[in-house]
Structures are given as structure tokens and as C-alpha cells.
């Protein structure tokens, strides 16, 4: 597990990347690159699909294909991006298609990440909004110009509706497909007007998902489904401890397994290459490897947590400082303090990591549910001594990711490429991780320890707030450190805490960044996975202590934050906040901003006589700017709630003497259907630019559930997962 990658990043703007995780500014300056003219000319031969620009291809059969610079991993991005284009193009929804764009950061950079092509931080719609509106509107103008030339009529008399270009006076009509080749040869106009949002016919409507059918009949293609002539399958035996290396190995027995073709050593372990998965698996089981553990992480999670707790007794680096916190604590009538603990978490996407690599003298071609194309190109090129542009990536559907496929070290891609190199590219190689490889493989949501302290005056007002956070940084020690860590603070460690919106005059947020040998990574909603719980549960503890209604307290502290208030009030109203509940049923609320979107959730929990409890219903209200596809927004919030609830009720990853104790879904349990509550999602109408929705549904659920249990039992809940039973105290 090499943490230090040799890649040199392109000029990624630190601000850009952080803003991608954070805030406004998106789309203020939108780089817009056109397909090189020669490339278009090549494509524009009659009878073939025509590239109108880098994002839009129109075929003679009248289908319009949007090239998505973002990975479709379930979040609905293919549908959302196509909707933006179709709206400005005045296309018919039925003619729209989407496919993964090639890896080419010049054309397809995530504008929120600077010059890196990749998907994450719930940025797909936000960073594409202006860019794809302009791409669609420009393409429409080119189709109109083509029709005007062909029909010899003024362009301004031409109208476009549902994929048909018409000239009323002459009665002439043409489809996009008929005009595409001619349109592609037209010089794109520099400035085109965008549609008045009041005239949107697709944006804001529940247009059907483009991938619904293929994902309901088994035809959707994932990396695991790619089959190339002569392709071999590889399984890699990785070290049992993080940081251990191969000392020596004996492949005799592995090579004797029928179907095993080769056994090769690469940086991360020993790979068995075989004619099929089963032979590779049996071959791997037959490997005899001696490991060098000298540099390995050998602590257990209990020991690491004990170190974090000791560290939390000392001040950390400042992430936020408002007012005079020490003076405020000195005059407080009451001081409350609480600690919160969060385990390592595996992402466990349903499709374990996998990729297909085909290597030849000219370059390498990769098929993957690729989430970080530019980084993966650079890391793959580094392995092969090639230029990044010699790495061709075919981005296809990913069977979930939740952050796992966007690694700065390109772990699974580099493994696949190293194996292909080790067998001299004599056959295409499919690398498959098993579930055990996934659960034990690291790149977890980091373990965290939080200490919160509040000073309350004699009127019950919060006058001081101190929040100390202890845990690993995701980017320290990687090439991303240079632009994502400022003054020792990794923004992703403190997001959601350092920007706490509550009106508290004296506030201090501190961070201790720890080092362990456990590789860590962003996990759906990143820092907010722990900061939302710590802050929102602590606030409810304060509400209980000061005898205030949790909703009323939040309203009082959020008067200057209308978007927080908007979702808070909507969720409370729809959930019937304040209305009496039947015995054993309890309610809790939480509100949180992440990725520039605002979500409030009210959880209803049912407590049984035996102490067991179940989340029965969650009512969510979201404000993610102008809704592009309300049904997908609802689906993402349902999904975010389920993902967050899984980590609310199921244990995380633990280690004993450095070894991960879980291995598959029997001991790393995840949410199943009987544990899924009813979910209602309400969307705040908005004319603001769209922001993300893949992640923001996740953070509020755990604190809402804990707050419900706290309100009904008077117990305190200071760690995730929550205990499986709770008892009502008098």
C-alpha cells in the first residue's frame, strides 16, 4: 500500500478543489473547450455520427448522445447531464443517450477540481450546469444555422421543438440527425443566449432515467462484464497487515492449479493470473507467501483510539476561531462536555473493485467504472513509463462507489496495470477484488474522536463552543496535500464543524491530524459523516440540559441562515413535529449543510419493550438549488439515508494487532431491506444554481436517529454505531 505516489498533478487549483467540496463560486468562470476541428472533420463524414462539440454527438438515426465527463455510479448523473443538454438543445427526451466521455482533462475536467477529470464531492451537476447549458444552446444554434443555409431562409425564422427544426413560412422541417453533419462543420458561435428558466420543459420534471431499462434486464455493462479475446483473470494476494511487503513466495502449488497461467509479483503483493476467476481464486489460495511485517501497522483499533483520546486532551491546530472562547467559558454558568467516537468504515460497493487492462507497445487501454480519470491516467502512465495521454480509459458503469473508486493512488488501476506489465501485455487482464479483498483492503472512512464543550450562561444561552477533532487526514502524504491542506488543516477533516452555522458568539474548532498505517479515503459525505453527528447530537444534549425544544433551539440559532431554516421548517412541518406520538415512538431532528446543499431529517424511532428499536420513518427536506430531476433527488436522498443508517446501526471495521477483523457481509454487516424505514423526501423550490445531492442526504440521519432515542429514553449516545438496545430511564 504505497501512500506516496510519484504523480505530479496538473495545475489543480486548490481553491477549485476545495470549493468543489464546499461552496459558491462554481460556474462563475466556466472554461469551455471545443473539440479540435480536425477531430470533428474526421467524425463528420456522411452517414456517421457527428460530433457537434465535445459533449454532444448526433447520429444519422437522430439519437443525441451526451458524453458524460462524470462517472455514473448510481447517482443519476447520466440522466441529469443529458437533461441539461436536452433542455437547451430543445431535444426530444426519447432521442437522448449518455455514455462515458474519454479520459481527456483538456475537454472533460471537473471544473470544481481545477484541471482534473473526476467525479466526487457531489459536484457533477454544479460544475456542469453552465458548461452543458452552453454546449446545448450552442449546438442548437449550429443546427439552426445548418438548416438556414440548407433552406436559404433567415436563421431567426427557424424554430426548434422536440428534436425537430422547422421553418413555418416554407413548411420545411428536419430532424437533428438530418442536419448533424452540416451543423458539425459550422463554426460555433461565440456567445449564445441561454433559455429563460421559466421556459424549461425538462429541467425540474421527472424525466425517466436513461439507465433504468438496462439496469432491470441484466444488459448494463460493468467492468466485471467486459470480455476481450484471450482475456485472463487476475486475483492479487495483498499483505495481511497494512504496510507489510512480500519477503518471498513459492508459486509451485499455485502454478499447478489447472487454468493458472502465471504468478507474478507486483508492488502490492503476488498476483495469480488464470484463464478464469475460479482458477485464479484456487491458485491464490495455493500461494505460499512470507511477509515482511517490519514497517506494518501493528496496532489494534482500541490502541489507536486510546491514543486519540490522550491527544484530545491537548489543544489542536485552529480550524476556526470566533470571539474569546476562554473568557466565555470562564464566565459560563454551566459547562457541558461530551466525546463522540466513530469507527473506520468500509465503502463496500456492491461491485467489488475491478478493471480490465489491455497493454501494447503504443499504450494501454483500461475499462473501469473510473472515478478519477486524470489521476488514474497519470498513475498508470507512471507504472509504464508512458505519457498520460497514452492511457486510454473507457469509463463504464460502476456498481456503486461512495468514494471508493476515487483514490489518489489509483490503487486498483495501478494493480491491474502492473499485472499487465508483469506478463508483458501478452493478454488483456481483468483484475477482480473479492469481497474479502474489499473489506480488508483499507481506504476506509477514517476513525475519529471528537470532544465538544459548551458554555451556557444563566439564561440558558450557548455563549461558548469548543470542538476538538482527532483523526487521520485523507490527503496528507499524497500529492493532494499541497492544495488541500492549509496551515495544517485538511478541510475534509473539519468540514461541517468549522463552518457550523449556529449563532454562538465564541467558537473554537481544533484539529489533531493523526498518523496510522491504515489507508483512508473519502466515504459518502466525507467529513460530514462524523462532524454532523457530533455537532447535532451535542446540540440536542444542550437542548435537553437547558430544557429547550430541539427544533426551537435550532430556529433560534439559525436566523441568519435562511436555507438551513427552510429545510428545517419544511421537514418539521411534514413530519408533524410537536404532535403527540403513540407510546414507544420517538422523534429526532438534525440539519446539516454539505457540498453546498442543505438537508434536514426527522427520524421516527419505535422502541420495543425489550429495548430493541427500529427506525420506522424518516422525513427529509432538501435544498439543492434548482431541482434538475426531482425523482432522482428523492432517490438520492433515500439512498443517502439508507447508506447513513447502515453506519448508524452496524459496526464498523476493527483491527486487532493490525489485522482487520472483518472479511465479508456476515461480519461486516450492512443495511438490509427489513431495516429500511419509510422515507419521505420534500424538495424546497429554488432558483439558485443546482448543487449536489449524491452525498448530502447521508449526514443528518445518524444524529436524527440518536436524537430521537435520546428524547425518548434520556440516554446519551456518544458513539457510532448506536447500541442495538436502549432503555427508557425515568
Amino acid at each position, binding site marked *: 500500500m504505497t501512500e506516496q505516489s510519484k504523480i505530479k498533478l496538473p495545475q489543480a487549483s486548490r481553491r477549485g478543489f476545495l470549493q468543489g467540496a464546499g461552496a459558491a463560486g462554481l460556474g462563475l468562470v466556466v472554461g469551455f473547450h471545443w473539440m479540435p476541428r480536425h477531430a470533428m472533420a474526421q467524425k463528420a463524414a456522411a452517414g456517421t455520427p457527428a460530433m457537434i462539440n465535445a459533449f454532444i454527438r448526433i447520429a444519422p438515426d437522430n439519437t443525441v448522445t451526451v458524453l458524460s465527463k462524470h462517472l455514473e455510479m448510481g447517482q443519476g448523473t447520466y440522466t441529469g447531464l443529458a437533461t441539461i443538454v436536452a433542455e437547451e438543445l430543445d431535444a426530444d427526451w426519447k432521442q437522448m443517450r449518455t455514455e462515458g466521455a474519454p479520459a481527456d482533462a483538456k475537454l472533460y475536467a471537473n471544473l470544481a477540481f481545477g484541471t482534473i477529470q473526476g467525479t466526487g464531492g457531489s459536484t457533477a451537476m454544479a460544475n456542469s450546469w453552465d458548461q452543458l447549458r452552453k454546449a446545448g444552446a450552442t449546438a442548437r444554434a449550429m443546427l439552426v444555422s445548418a438548416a438556414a443555409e440548407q433552406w436559404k431562409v433567415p436563421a431567426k425564422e427557424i424554430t426548434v421543438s422536440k428534436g425537430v427544426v422547422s421553418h413555418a413560412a416554407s413548411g420545411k422541417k428536419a430532424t437533428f440527425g438530418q442536419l448533424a453533419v452540416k451543423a458539425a462543420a459550422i463554426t460555433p458561435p461565440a456567445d449564445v443566449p441561454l433559455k429563460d428558466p421559466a421556459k424549461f420543459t425538462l429541467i425540474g420534471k421527472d424525466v425517466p432515467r436513461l439507465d433504468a431499462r438496462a439496469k432491470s434486464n441484466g444488459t448494463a455493462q460493468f467492468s466485471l462484464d467486459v470480455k476481450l479475446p484471450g482475456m485472463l483473470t487476475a486475483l492479487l494476494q495483498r499483505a495481511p497487515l497494512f504496510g507489510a511487503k512480500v519477503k518471498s513466495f513459492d508459486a509451485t502449488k499455485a502454478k499447478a492449479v489447472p487454468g493458472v497461467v502465471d504468478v507474478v509479483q507486483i508492488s502490492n503483493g503476488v498476483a495469480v493470473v488464470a484463464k478464469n476467476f475460479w482458477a485464479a481464486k484456487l491458485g491464490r489460495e495455493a500461494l505460499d507467501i512470507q511477509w515482511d511485517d517490519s514497517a506494518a501497522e501493528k496496532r489494534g483499533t482500541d490502541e489507536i483510539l486510546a491514543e486519540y483520546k490522550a491527544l484530545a486532551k491537548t489543544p489542536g491546530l485552529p480550524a476556526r476561531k470566533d470571539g474569546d472562547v476562554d473568557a466565555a467559558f470562564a464566565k459560563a454558568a454551566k459547562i457541558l462536555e461530551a466525546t463522540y467516537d466513530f469507527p473506520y468504515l468500509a465503502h463496500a460497493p456492491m461491485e467489488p473493485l475491478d478493471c480490465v487492462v489491455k497493454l501494447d507497445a503504443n499504450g494501454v487501454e483500461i475499462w473501469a467504472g473510473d472515478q478519477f480519470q486524470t489521476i488514474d491516467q497519470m498513475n498508470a502512465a507512471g507504472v509504464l513509463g508512458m505519457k498520460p495521454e497514452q492511457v486510454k480509459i473507457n469509463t463504464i458503469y460502476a456498481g456503486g462507489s461512495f468514494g471508493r473508486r476515487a483514490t489518489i493512488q489509483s490503487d486498483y488501476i495501478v494493480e491491474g496495470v502492473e499485472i499487465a506489465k508483469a506478463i508483458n501485455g501478452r493478454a488483456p487482464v481483468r483484475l477482480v477484488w473479492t*469481497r474479502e479483498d474489499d473489506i480488508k483492503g483499507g481506504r476506509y472512512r477514517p476513525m475519529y474522536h471528537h470532544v465538544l464543550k459548551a458554555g451556557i450562561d444563566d439564561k440558558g444561552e450557548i455563549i461558548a463552543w469548543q470542538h476538538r477533532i482527532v483523526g487521520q487526514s485523507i490527503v496528507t502524504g499524497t500529492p493532494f496535500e499541497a492544495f488541500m491542506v492549509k496551515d495544517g488543516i485538511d478541510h475534509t477533516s473539519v468540514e461541517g464543524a468549522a463552518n457550523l452555522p449556529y449563532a454562538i458568539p465564541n467558537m473554537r474548532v481544533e484539529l489533531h491530524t493523526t498518523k496510522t498505517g491504515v489507508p483512508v479515503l473519502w466515504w459518502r459525505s466525507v467529513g460530514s459523516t462524523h462532524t454532523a453527528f457530533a455537532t447535532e447530537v451535542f446540540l440536542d444534549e444542550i437542548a435537553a440540559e437547558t430544557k429547550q425544544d430541539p427544533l426551537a433551539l435550532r430556529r433560534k440559532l439559525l436566523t441568519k441562515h435562511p436555507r438551513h431554516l427552510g429545510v428545517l421548517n419544511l421537514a418539521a412541518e411534514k413530519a408533524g413535529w410537536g404532535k403527540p406520538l403513540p407510546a414507544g415512538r420517538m422523534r429526532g431532528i438534525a440539519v446539516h449543510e454539505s457540498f453546498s446543499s442543505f438537508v434536514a431529517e426527522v427520524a421516527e424511532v419505535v422502541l420495543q419493550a425489550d429495548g430493541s428499536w427500529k427506525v420506522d420513518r424518516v422525513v427529509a427536506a432538501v435544498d439543492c438549488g434548482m431541482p434538475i430531476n426531482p425523482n432522482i433527488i428523492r432517490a438520492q436522498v433515500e*439512498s443517502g439515508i439508507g447508506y447513513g443508517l447502515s453506519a448508524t446501526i452496524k459496526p464498523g471495521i476493527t483491527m486487532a494487532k493490525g489485522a482487520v477483523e472483518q472479511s465479508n457481509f456476515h461480519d461486516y454487516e450492512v443495511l438490509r431491506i427489513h431495516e429500511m424505514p419509510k422515507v419521505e423526501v420534500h424538495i424546497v423550490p429554488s432558483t439558485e444554481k443546482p448543487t449536489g445531492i449524491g452525498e448530502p442526504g447521508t449526514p443528518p440521519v445518524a444524529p436524527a436517529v440518536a436524537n430521537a432515542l435520546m428524547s425518548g429514553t434520556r440516554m446519551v449516545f456518544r458513539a457510532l454505531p448506536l447500541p442495538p438496545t436502549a432503555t427508557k430511564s425515568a
Partner: protein
Amino acid sequence: MATKFTLNGKAVSLNVDPDMPLLWAVRDEIGLTGSKFGCGAAQCGACTMHVDGQPVRACSTPISAIEGQKVTTIEGLGGKVAQAVQAAWVKHEVAQCGYCQSGQIMSAVALLTDNKKPNDAQIDEAMQGNICRCATYVRIRAAIHDAAKTVRA
């Protein structure tokens, strides 16, 4: 020794390791990739196929165990129940990443073949072996209820 069975209505004879799981035999040897690998341990249900009409976890079923039996994968689904389930899956836009959905649909078809009017508890029981990390469970329930109505109509 070759294992003979019927796959999606066609006779198949495979000369592979008798311990090779049905899932990998169908995926790697026959080339049907709609059934997915999620855990290899009968824990997640992504590989679910029907063997003589019953849902089985193909990742943990040795090929030798299905000698002479009828295997149906997502590619071979047909009939009123399957059509109703797949149509409901599209209508409710159940799938997100979609990776587990072949298995979910195979389990749902098996449920509705046995029980034309399952309640929520029966749905939860029948579908508990199928994990969805996108947590599309709310829509899976809704789609099964909807498909059940179509099947009964």
C-alpha cells in the same frame, strides 16, 4: 466429467472443475454476465439465479450440484410475473448503480410466483438476502407491490 443442465431453456454441457460455482461457470464459460459477483459467500444475493424455479445463490452452488436441473438467469426471464416485475422496476426507477438489481429481480420474481399478494413483512423476509448498498429498498418494496397488482390483474 461434464456437467449437463438446462440454461435458459437450452441444453448445456460444461467440462469444468465440478467445484466451480454456477455463477462463474455461467459468467466465464458461457458468457452470460447479467448475474453478478458481490460476495462469493451467499451473503448478498447479487448472483441469484433460479434452479428449478427456486432462487439460489449461484456464487456458492457448485456446478456439479445442478446436474440435470433447469437454471434460469436474468437473461432467460420470461412470463407474466417476470414481465410485471421488470416493468415495475423501470416504472419505479428502482435501480441506481444497478449492480445488485439482477439478483433483486430474480428474488422478487420467485416471491411473486409463490405469493401473488405479499405484504411488507413478507417482502422483507423474501428479499432480506439481497443487499443493495444504494439502499433502493423503499422502491423495491413499492415495485413488488405494483408488480403484484399486475400479476393479479
